[in-house]
C-alpha cells in the first residue's frame, strides 16, 4: 500500500481532541460550519492533492521554471493544479463570504490545506502568497483598493506577491533603497531592485499584484521611513479591464535547491519612467502593516515545515514496514529471512524522532492557528487580548522550531531509507530540499532568536513570557493528577525552572554587561525555549491520549494513543534533556563564538 500523504487520524486527533476546532462553530463568524463541513473540506483537499499534485510532484521538481528573456515558462500541469485549487475554493478558505471565501476558522483551514502543502508544497506558494497579499490589503487598504485588487485575486484571476527583499536588504530591511516619488494625481512612481520574490512573474494569471516596500523620497532613514505600495504588473482600467503594462520587469529567475514549483524572481522596478504605484494606508507605516500580518505568515512557514516533516515521516514509515534487510543481533540463523527494517530498534529510533518532531511541530502550529482565531473571534475582549499576547510571544517559536526540526525529520526519513532515500525515485530527498528554505525566509533562525530574546521576552514587562509560562503551568497541574503522565509533568516543571533561571541571567546580562555578548548565543536560547514549548505540547497530547486510553477505546485507537504516549516519552528522554547543555552555555555567558576572530578561521 502506498504511503498516505498525511495521517488523517492524527489530524482529527489534533483538531478535535487536542484542540477544539468544533467549538469554533459556536462563534457567529463560523456558525455555518460544523465538523461535517470541515471533514468534507479536508476530503476535497485530499482529492485535489491526490489528483493534481501527487502525480506531478517529481516532474515539477526536475523541471524548474525557465525564462527566455521575455516570458516565464513552466510545466502546464502547474497551472491546471493551481486552477483546481482555486476552483475548489481551497485558495481562500478563511476569507469572508462576501469576498468569495469560505469563512473557515484558521485552525480548520490549516489542517485542510495541509494535504495540498504535503503533496506539492511549492505549488501552493502561488495561492498562499496571493491570500496573504489579499489579507494585507483588506486590513490596511481603502475600499476602492479592495474592490479593485482583492476581488480579482480572490476570484483567482490575479495573483499577489510580497516584494520586500533587495540585494542589499534581506534580514536588515531597514536598509532598503527602492524609492517612491509622489505624483500630482496621488499615485507614486517606484524604482529599484527586488530579489527572491516568490511568484514575482509567471503566466498563471492575468495579472500580478506586487505589494512593494519602498522609501518615499525624503523619508527618514531606517524602519521609520518605509512605505507599502500596490504595484501591478498590468495597470487596471476603471471598468476592471487590463490596461497598459506597468514598468516592472523580470530580470531573471533564481535556481534553487528546492521549491522548484514556484518562481523566485529578481524584479526590476522603474527601468523607464517608474512603475505606477498606489500607497497602502499612510506613508512610512509600511513595515508596521507588514508586521501586522507577520504572525499569520509565520504560522504558515512553521506549518509548511511541519507538514513536510509529517509527510516524510509517513513515507519512510511505510517504507520501513516493507523493506526487508538484515537480522536482529539475537538471530544467528543465516537461513532465516531478513526482517523488515522497522524491526531494528535503531530504525524505530529514527521513526520515533520524526514522529516527535513532526507531530510536535504541527500541533504547535495548530495552537498558533487557534490563537489567531481567538485573537479575532473569541467571545470576550479579554480572551481576544490574551490570545493576541500569547500568539505574539510564541510566534518566533512557532516559526522557528518546525523550521529547524522539520528538515531534521526529513533528513532522518532519508536515513531510514538508506541509499533509496538519497535518490529521487523516492520523494524524501526532495522534502529535505524543499524544507530547507523554512529556517531562512520570513526571518532567519538567528534573527528569530534575537526577536525572541531581545524583544519578545522583555516586552510589556515580560507579559507574553509570563502568559506562556502560566499556560504551561495549567497543563502541568492537569497532568499531575494522572499517574500515566505525572512523571513528565514533573520533568517539565524542572525544565521550566531551567528556562526561568537562564532567562534571568540573560536579561540581567543584557542590562548590565555587553549586550552583544549577552545575545551571542541567542540561538541556543531559542532552542531551549523551543524544546520546553514542544515538551509542553507533547504533554498536552499525552494527557489526551492517557484519558482516551482509560476509556478502553477501539483496538485501533488504543494503538494510536499508545503511539502518542511513546512519542511523548521519546521527547522527554532524548530531546528535552539537551536544554541542560544549552542552559549552561547561556548562563556562563560563554564567549567562544563571541571571541572568535575573523582572522582565526
Amino acid at each position, binding site marked *: 500500500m502506498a504511503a498516505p500523504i498525511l495521517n488523517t487520524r492524527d489530524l482529527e486527533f489534533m483538531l478535535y481532541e487536542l484542540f477544539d476546532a468544533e467549538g469554533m462553530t459556536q462563534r457567529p463568524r463560523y456558525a*455555518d460550519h460544523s465538523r461535517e*463541513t470541515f471533514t468534507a473540506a479536508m476530503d*476535497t483537499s485530499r482529492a485535489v492533492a491526490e489528483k493534481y499534485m501527487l502525480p506531478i510532484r517529481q516532474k515539477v521538481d526536475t523541471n524548474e521554471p525557465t525564462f527566455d528573456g521575455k516570458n516565464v515558462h513552466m510545466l502546464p500541469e502547474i497551472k491546471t493544479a493551481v486552477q483546481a485549487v482555486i476552483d475548489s475554493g481551497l485558495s481562500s478558505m478563511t476569507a469572508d463570504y462576501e469576498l468569495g471565501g469560505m469563512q473557515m476558522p484558521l485552525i480548520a483551514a490549516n489542517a485542510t490545506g495541509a494535504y495540498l502543502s504535503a503533496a506539492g508544497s511549492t505549488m501552493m506558494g502561488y495561492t498562499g502568497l496571493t491570500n496573504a497579499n489579499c489579507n494585507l490589503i483588506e486590513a490596511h487598504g481603502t475600499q476602492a483598493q479592495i474592490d479593485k485588487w482583492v476581488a480579482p485575486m480572490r476570484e483567482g484571476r490575479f495573483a499577489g506577491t510580497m516584494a520586500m527583499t533587495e540585494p542589499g536588504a534581506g534580514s536588515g530591511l531597514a536598509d532598503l533603497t527602492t524609492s517612491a516619488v509622489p505624483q500630482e494625481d496621488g499615485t507614486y512612481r517606484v524604482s529599484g531592485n527586488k530579489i527572491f520574490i516568490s511568484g514575482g512573474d509567471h503566466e498563471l494569471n492575468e495579472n500580478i499584484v506586487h505589494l512593494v516596500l519602498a522609501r518615499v523620497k525624503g523619508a527618514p532613514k531606517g524602519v521609520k521611513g518605509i512605505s507599502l505600495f500596490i504595484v501591478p504588473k498590468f495597470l487596471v482600467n476603471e471598468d476592471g479591464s487590463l490596461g497598459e503594462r506597468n514598468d516592472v520587469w523580470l530580470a531573471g529567475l533564481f535556481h534553487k535547491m528546492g521549491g522548484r514549483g514556484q518562481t523566485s524572481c529578481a524584479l526590476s522596478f522603474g527601468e523607464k519612467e517608474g512603475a505606477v504605484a498606489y500607497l497602502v494606508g499612510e506613508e512610512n507605516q509600511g513595515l508596521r502593516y507588514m508586521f501586522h500580518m507577520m504572525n499569520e505568515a509565520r504560522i504558515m512557514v512553521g506549518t509548511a515545515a511541519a507538514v513536510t516533516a509529517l509527510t516524510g515521516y509517513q513515507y519512510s514509515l511505510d517504507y520501513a514496514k516493507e523493506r526487508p534487510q538484515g537480522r536482529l543481533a539475537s538471530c544467528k540463523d543465516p537461513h532465516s529471512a531478513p526482517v523488515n527494517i522497522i524491526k531494528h530498534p535503531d530504525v524505530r529510533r529514527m521513526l520515533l524522532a520524526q514522529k516527535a518532531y513532526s507531530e510536535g511541530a504541527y500541533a504547535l502550529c495548530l495552537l498558533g492557528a487557534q490563537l489567531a482565531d481567538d485573537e479575532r473571534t473569541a467571545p470576550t475582549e479579554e480572551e481576544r487580548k490574551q490570545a493576541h499576547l500569547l500568539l505574539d510571544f510564541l510566534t518566533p517559536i512557532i516559526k522557528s522550531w518546525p523550521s529547524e526540526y522539520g528538515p531534521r525529520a526529513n533528513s532522518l526519513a532519508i536515513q531510514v531509507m538508506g541509499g533509496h532515500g538519497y535518490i529521487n525515485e523516492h520523494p524524501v530527498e526532495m522534502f529535505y530540499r524543499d524544507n530547507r528554505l523554512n529556517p531562512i525566509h520570513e526571518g532567519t533562525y538567528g534573527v528569530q532568536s534575537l526577536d525572541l530574546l531581545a524583544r519578545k521576552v522583555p516586552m510589556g514587562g515580560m507579559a507574553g513570557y509570563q502568559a506562556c509560562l502560566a499556560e504551561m503551568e495549567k497543563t502541568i497541574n492537569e497532568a499531575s493528577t494522572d499517574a500515566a503522565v505525572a512523571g513528565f509533568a514533573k520533568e517539565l516543571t524542572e525544565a521550566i525552572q531551567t528556562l526561568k533561571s537562564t532567562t534571568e541571567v540573560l536579561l540581567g546580562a543584557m542590562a548590565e554587561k555587553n549586550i552583544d555578548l549577552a545575545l551571542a548565543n541567542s540561538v541556543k536560547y531559542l532552542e531551549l525555549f523551543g524544546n520546553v514549548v514542544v515538551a509542553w505540547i507533547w504533554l498536552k497530547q499525552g494527557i489526551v491520549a492517557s484519558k482516551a486510553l482509560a476509556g478502553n477505546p477501539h483496538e485501533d*485507537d488504543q494503538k494510536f494513543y499508545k503511539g502518542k504516549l511513546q512519542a511523548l516519552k521519546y521527547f522527554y528522554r532524548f530531546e528535552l534533556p539537551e536544554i541542560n547543555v544549552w542552559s549552561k552555555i547561556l548562563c556562563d555567558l560563554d564567549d567562544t563564538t563571541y571571541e572568535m576572530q575573523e582572522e582565526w578561521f
Partner: protein
Amino acid sequence: MKILVAVKRVVDYNVKVRPKSDGTDVDIANAKMSINPFCEIAVEEAVRLKEKGVATEIVAVSMGPKQSQEQIRTAMALGADRGILVESDDALEPLAVAKCLKAIIANESPDLVIMGKQSIDGDNNQTGQMLGALTSMPQGTFASEVEIADGKAKVTREIDGGLQTVELTLPAIVTTDLRLNEPRYASLPNIMKAKKKPLDTTTPADLGVDTAPRVQTLKVEPPAERQAGIKVADVAELVDKLKNEAKVIS
C-alpha cells in the same frame, strides 16, 4: 425530468477492514465512512444530466442510520437538489432497501433512478435488479454509458466479453459500473450550499416496509493468508508442481 439517486453510507474504500474478534461481523466501529463509490458515480451521472439540461431535479435518497445524512449532504454538495433519509439502525438487506426505494418512487415519481451496481460493503449486486422486479420498471445494469432522448434511455452495459446496448422506456432504472464517469469532488462553496438544501427524514415503518433480515450471518473470518513462495530447481520441478500441487495444468 426528475432523477432519483440512491446513495449508501459504507466504510471508506481506503480502510482495510477486519472481522471482529468474536467473528460475528466485520469490525467497522472506528472506520471512516464514505459514500459508496458506485453511488458516487450515480450522483455524478445525474449531475451531468442536469448540467446538460436533460434533468431538472435530482433527489438523493439513503437508507441507513441517522449518520447517512452525511452521505446525502455529500450528494447534495456534488449537485443533488434535495435529500431523503429513510432512517433505520437495522442492517438493511438489498430486499429491504429495494422496498424502501419502491415506496419512495411511488411518492416521488422520478423519470429515472440511478444507483450503484453494488455497494463495496455487502458486494451483493442485487438492489437495482430487485427494485426492477418490484416496480416493473425496465433496468439497465452495469452502465458504462447513458444517453437520454425522446423519453428513452439508451444504456451501454458492460457484460462478459463486451458491451451491450439496451434501450429502456422511461421511467427506468440504471445501475452504474466503474467506467461510467469519473466523479467530481465537492467544491467548498458547494459544501456550504449543501447545508441549506432540504433533507427530509422518514422511516421504513412510515413507508410500510418490513426490514426483517432474510439472511443470517453465521461467521465472519479473514481470508486465508497467502503462503510464501518457494524456489524451484528447474523447469521439470515447476511443471510437476503446477500439475500435481497447484493442479492448474493437466
